[in-house]
């Protein structure tokens, strides 16, 4: 059994002269839910397309379930579910016919799961695709990605256009999927509270590189905002482990990646000042990392 479901090594990809991914390294453990974050244009969609085999990196290697996605056979594709950012479903087809059509392309298509998802998401299957709301169209895409029970699911902005209730149902479904066995879910999103609810690993992409890739718990435990105050003289310069550093009114406010919990105390002792540690939400952490 391969321990990593997804491996990206030293991958570069550009569009024309615009570099998008710059020697990207990323691994996703089998059985995890990986939340993939980044600002618009940071290269999330490019990365997911490469993982789905819809493009080829200029340098480096990619492996999904031990195979190069560019060389996926039809059989390999059965094991990888993919929801694209801009899905293109046939507008005039009835949802029911579309699902029926797709089910015949996948030997492992799980009819029961498909019915369950339709009921859970309350998708009107007797309507044409074009008559559905954007959110329901998205859910049809999610059903198409999940019903063949793939071992790896790649979802590019699955929750875009979903209302809060549909989003919660979708997230619960993702959790059920993981609970049921050795599946891996890789999804990009801007909705950070979704990541906080379900993901165990988080990656933040900025300037074509992965700035952070670790468990959400350890990220929250090691990235802290620290306020240093009561300096005997001027506030010090930004230390190397700080993502952000602001000095005002003789105080310094930094977002620090802590190598160990005692680091703020050690810095404060060094500067002969006092300090206060502030917990950060994923959104705070993301903004500080993506902005720098």
């Amino acid at each position, binding site marked *: 059994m391969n321990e990593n479901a997804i491996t990206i090594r030293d991958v570069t990809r550009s569009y024309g002269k615009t570099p998008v991914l710059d020697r990207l390294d990323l691994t996703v453990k089998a059985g*995890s*839910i990986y939340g993939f974050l980044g600002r618009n244009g940071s290269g999330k969609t490019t990365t997911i397309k490469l993982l789905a085999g819809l493009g080829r990196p200029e340098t480096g290697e990619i492996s999904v379930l031990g195979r190069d996605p560019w060389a996926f056979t039809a059989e390999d594709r059965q094991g990888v579910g993919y929801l694209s950012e801009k899905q293109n479903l046939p507008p005039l087809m009835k949802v029911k016919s579309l699902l029926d059509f797709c089910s015949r392309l996948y030997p492992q298509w799980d009819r029961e799961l498909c019915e369950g998802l339709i009921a859970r998401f309350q998708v009107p299957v007797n309507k044409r695709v074009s008559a559905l709301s954007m959110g329901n169209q998205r859910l049809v895409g999610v059903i198409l990605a999940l019903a063949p029970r793939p071992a790896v699911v790649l979802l590019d902005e699955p929750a875009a256009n979903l209302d809060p209730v549909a989003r*919660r149902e979708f*997230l*619960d479904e993702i*959790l*059920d999927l*993981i*609970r049921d066995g050795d599946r891996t879910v890789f999804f990009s999103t801007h909705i*950070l*509270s979704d990541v*906080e*609810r*379900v*993901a*165990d690993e988080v990656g933040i992409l900025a300037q074509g590189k992965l700035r952070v890739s670790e468990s*959400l*718990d350890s990220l*929250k*435990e090691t990235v802290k905002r620290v306020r240093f105050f009561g300096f005997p003289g001027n506030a010090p310069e930004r230390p190397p482990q700080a993502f952000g550093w602001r000095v005002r009114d003789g105080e310094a406010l930094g977002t620090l990646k802590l190598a160990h*919990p005692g680091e703020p105390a050690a810095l404060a002792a060094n500067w002969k000042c006092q300090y*206060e540690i*502030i*917990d*950060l*939400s*994923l*959104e*705070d952490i993301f903004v500080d990392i993506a902005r720098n």
Partner: protein
Amino acid sequence: MFIALHPSSGVPLYLQLLNQLKERIASGQVKPGEQLPSVRELSADLKINPLTVAKVYQILEREGLVETRRGMGTFVAQKVDTLPVAARRQALDPVVRQLVAEAIHLRLSEAEVVELIARHFQQLNPRNSSNEP
């Protein structure tokens, strides 16, 4: 088991769950020998990643608060005093430090804080709150 978790808080989810389970064990809401829900059940119930629940159970087990009986499940330990005093003190130290810092900010005296702590001991653990070592 009703547990309130706040995914967007700066406190990691596992720590929120850990603290609430510890509180329930400490206050006797879950009794020694009582079975906890399985990782699967609790993660489905709380709608969170099963790895988060598994991690919390591992920590509780390492700290001697629960026991895992193979093939049967996770149970609240009969006696909880497995860690040496020094280790237990150390575990509490960062929380106390934060408490004292807050108290200083709020200009509460040491005596007032001690009184507050005593009241919480009384509420959570009425039988053993009388100045034990």
